[in-house]
Each structure stands twice: as structure tokens, then as C-alpha cells.
């Protein structure tokens, strides 16, 4: 085919390798039994990798690990685990800054007449 197209002066349309590979990957994913006989030799070796990745696990590994870890940690340990100290008294949610002036006359403070210098 290639020779005849050369002879006839036509230039065969070249499909980029990445695109050829993607088509073959589509076949691999959609049909497990698909034969990859007629592929470009340059992507044949890469397709062997693609074929092996067909069963690549998702985040299942992490989920199962968490599940197993939960099983090996007895509930009694959770209960006995020391709780973190809470330095904020229950019910208090804000902190306000305040200014303390030593020896200031009480009546003037109450009147708000002491000024910051």
C-alpha cells in the first residue's frame, strides 16, 4: 500500500503514534480478549504495558488498608486513649485583649478619661 501510494505520488496520511496507541488502548480496555496483531511495531511493546495495566486498582488499596487497621485496633484502645487536653473552657469561643494600668484611679478608668500615650 505504502509503495503504491508513493508511486502514485500521493502522501499517505500519517496518524500520530499517541493517537494510534490510544485506539489500541481503547480496544484493550473494552475487550479483554482483543488481539493486538495489527499494530505499529513501535507501539506494540508499549501496548504490552497497557495490557498489564488493565486491572490497575483504584483507591481500593487505601480503603482496604484503613479497613484492616480499624480491625486490628481494638475499640477498648480507642476508649482508653488519652484525650488531648483542652485549654479552652467549655462555652468560651472568643478571646479579647485587655489593658491593665497599675495604680490608676478607679473612678477615672470608669469615666474613660485615661488615655493611652
Amino acid at each position: 500500500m505504502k509503495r503504491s501510494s508513493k508511486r502514485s505520488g500521493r502522501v499517505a496520511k500519517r496518524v500520530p503514534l499517541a493517537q494510534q496507541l490510544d485506539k489500541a488502548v481503547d480496544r484493550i480496555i473494552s475487550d479483554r480478549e482483543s488481539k493486538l496483531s495489527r499494530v505499529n511495531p513501535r507501539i506494540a511493546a508499549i501496548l504490552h504495558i497497557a495490557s498489564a495495566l488493565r486491572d490497575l486498582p483504584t483507591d481500593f488499596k487505601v480503603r482496604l488498608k484503613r479497613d484492616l487497621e480499624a480491625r486490628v485496633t481494638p475499640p477498648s484502645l480507642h476508649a482508653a486513649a488519652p484525650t488531648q487536653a483542652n485549654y479552652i473552657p467549655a462555652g468560651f469561643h472568643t478571646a479579647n485583649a485587655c489593658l491593665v494600668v497599675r495604680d490608676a484611679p478607679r473612678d477615672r478608668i470608669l469615666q474613660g478619661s485615661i488615655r493611652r500615650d
Partner: protein
Amino acid sequence: MAEEPASKRPRKDAPERRLIEAAQRNPACFAQLYENNFERVYAFIARRVHDRDQAQDLTADLFHSALKNLSRFECRGAPFAAWLFRIAANAIADRGKRAAQFEAIKLCEASDPEPWRDTDLAEVEHRARLFKLVEKLPDDQRRVITMRFAHQKSVAEIARDIGHSEGAIKQLQFRGLQSLRTMVGER
């Protein structure tokens, strides 16, 4: 030079033996055994059941069972994976008996005492290694390879999710697979 007696030579399985003994004393140490064996066990099962959900269910059952029965495991020189493969083969066969739809039913009927020997363990190891190597790919390649093969999304879907052109996704897929090929040392 006289060769050291075999009993005094350091055993290749010594680190694994230590891990198993640690996990037998404290099940919390099972995590490392899990990390070391997850991919090969999953590859072993997925290769037989040909169904992602079933493979995940069986893998989960297997590790739960292994954790539960770890105290029964005796280190006699066989790798820990061989014990896991045996449990997997039995679980597949049991499920095959019940559902009569898996390839495993053949294993069950074959009365082979070590059914995993019939299978291509080299291929299982190859797949397990690839699954691990995907984690070492550059972020953009890993993301595309994971979405394409693990989540089985089309290039158009990935392009939409990531916000790249379809051409860019195909290139990332190409480069990702090429990188994996280089990492496993295939020519």
C-alpha cells in the same frame, strides 16, 4: 575458601520472617506485610476472575482472612505470598463453585495441590510491579494513567476533568506508558 554452611548464611527471607513474627505478636504490624503483598495478590486474583469488583471483593476477603489466621502461619521457608496465593486460590475456587462462572472452577476440579503453579507467576509479578511503579510516575502522567486504566475513563472524559485538550491527554498517556516501560526495563 571454604563455603559457609547454609545454616549460617543469612537467609533471603529473614526480613519477611521478622515481619511475620512481629505481626503475629502484634497485628498492627500486619500493615507492612499488606504493603509488600497487596499488588501481587490483587494481580493474581484479577488475572483469574476478570472482573474488577469481584477481584476487589476477593482481595478484601483474603487479607481479612490472612490477618485473622496469621497466628497459624508457620515460616518454613516458603514466601508469605505463597500462603496468600493458596488462600486466594481456595477463595476463587469456592466462589467458582458457588457461582460457576469463574475460570477458577477449572482450578477446583483440577485437584492440583498447588494450583498457582499452573499460572504464570512471572506475569503476576510483572503486573504487581507495574501497579507499584505507576505511583512513581510524574504527577500528570500518573493522573492520566490512573484515570484511564483504573477508572477506565475515555480520553474525552479525562480531558474534560483535567481541563486539557484530548491531544495533550493522549500524549501524557503515551509518555506515561513509555516511562513505565523504561522503568521495568523492557526494550
